[in-house]
């Protein structure tokens, strides 16, 4: 079936764009780089019989660290009709290069590796929106890892954002990986719910990010 042009202000392509951005954050995020959606430029939608809804998107990404650093992207997001538990398929192309963060990543890696006591922190950002500079890589890691959680749990009726890191604790490892146990809050924009979510995140400068464990937590009443 043909692709129907949708206004970029429409809610449905907006959700697909947020999902694509979260997916890109997971695939391309590092402790020095947090891709985030700046604006949706163009959206088309195909209803594929027996398969699902496919969105063709053109959008602009910014970086959570540098608002003025932007890059154009295209993506295809397919929400599957049948299996509601299947994560949407996302394919993307970034026009040009994202900022190289190797030096910052290695500095962060060495800094954490040499800590005598495991890193522990909470409320990032705090109630007033503050993020201490030394916590920015911790936040960026959560931003990327939450992209994975968001991708796995999204459908056409959801729009998730990372709202806050409630708590993070480093888990010392004997191998070369860094491990962090996060308790995050996700904001789901359609239901307006704030959802606590636990994630165990592994990272190494050369091997990237892995979410080895994640689970939705009961809401505080």
């Amino acid at each position, binding site marked *: 079936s043909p692709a129907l042009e949708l206004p970029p202000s429409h809610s449905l392509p907006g959700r697909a764009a947020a999902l694509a951005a979260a997916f890109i954050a997971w695939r391309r995020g590092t402790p020095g780089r947090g891709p985030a959606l700046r604006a949706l430029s163009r959206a088309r939608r195909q209803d594929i019989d027996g398969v699902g809804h496919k969105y063709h998107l053109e959008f602009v990404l910014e970086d959570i660290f540098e608002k003025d650093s932007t890059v154009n992207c295209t993506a295809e997001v397919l929400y599957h009709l049948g299996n509601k538990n299947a994560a949407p398929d996302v394919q993307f192309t970034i026009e040009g290069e994202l900022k190289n963060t190797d030096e910052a990543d290695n500095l962060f890696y060495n800094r954490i590796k040499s800590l005598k006591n495991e890193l522990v922190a909470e409320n990032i950002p705090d109630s*007033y929106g503050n993020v201490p500079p030394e916590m920015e890589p911790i936040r960026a890691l959560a931003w990327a890892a939450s992209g994975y959680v968001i991708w796995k749990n999204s459908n056409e009726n959801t729009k998730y954002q990372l709202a806050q890191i409630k708590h993070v604790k480093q888990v010392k490892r004997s191998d070369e990986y860094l491990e962090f146990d996060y308790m995050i809050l996700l904001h789901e924009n359609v239901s*307006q719910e704030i959802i606590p979510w636990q994630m165990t995140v592994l990272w190494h400068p050369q091997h990237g990010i892995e979410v080895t464990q994640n689970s939705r937590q009961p*809401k505080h009443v």
Partner: protein
Amino acid sequence: QLDFWLSPRGTGDPVDVRVPFPSLQPLKAHLEANGVPYSIMIEDVQALVDHEQMQMFRHRRRLQPLSTDAFDYSSYHNLDEIYAFMDLLVAENPNLVSKLEIGRSTEDRPLYVLKFSKGGTNRPAIWIDTGIHSREWVTQASGVWFAKKIVQDQEKDEGLASILDQMDIFLEIVTNPDGFVFTHTTNRMWRKTRSKRSGSFCVGVDPNRNWDAGFGGSGSSSNPCSETYRGPYANSEPEVQAIVNFVKNHGNIKAFISIHSYSQLLLYPYGYTTTPVPDAEELHQVAEEAAAALSSLYGTKYTYGSIISTIYQASGGTIDWTYNQGIKYSFTFELRDTGRYGFLLPASQIVPTAQETWLALKVIMRHTLEHPY
């Protein structure tokens, strides 16, 4: 030049030293040449100090400001501070500003509205509310800034002066004071009111689903534990009933603007149905112009449209009710940002957000003035 924070004690014991920048490379070379292991604990001490100073400046236990000129618009305030600000503003501008109590919240806090008026009796009016959802802190903070802005500019800004020559402005800064206090004392992410009902241990009603427009529809929840719980019946929340009473008793409100965050949207009715409002085309034009004015200041991009097509179906919403009451120019804002900080918008963005939003508000107010109905 080396500043020892943990002095040398004996061989085998660690030493902590702050190294001035020019000594950094020579010291590293010296340690490496002598096989002395080291690690960097703090990359940049100055940055930490600067950050701490900034934090302390922001969160200092403030003495009460003695005037609205001494008030810090670039930081977030609690309920007492905002209520004190209102009283100061009224005291400083008795000929323009008065404070009305339009009701009491569930926890018996006063619900205050500032009235900006140059005279007359029951003039056509603009209504602006902020903070109906308590976690949306940039909105109450912007409301405070708008109040001061109106007072500052009422003479020197021609547009505002001509609006106030013929119309009144009503501004409710903390529309949900119980929720607001809760965000300060207990849960920063609290959205709803704090009403309690027997039969549920969950607290609160979504005040933006509690209005009598499409009440009970599928754009709201019947579950008291939900963030979009509509309440047991329309206007069950005293915070909502107070505004309903005010609007009906006034009878001459011509524009109604309810301000939320976040998402950077400018919305008009309806949220509860896909049927367009009769004035959709005009409202769309006004929204387009207002969004362009907003964007002109810092380039902040807003999306605009009806609630239902732009975000989601929402039943029992404020501006659906006000529109159905005959208030044609009914709009909702969702302020900065688009998710990078979300509800936790850094205080440094309060004033820029308020400044750009004010330009959009002036477009709506001016259009209302120039298109009497």
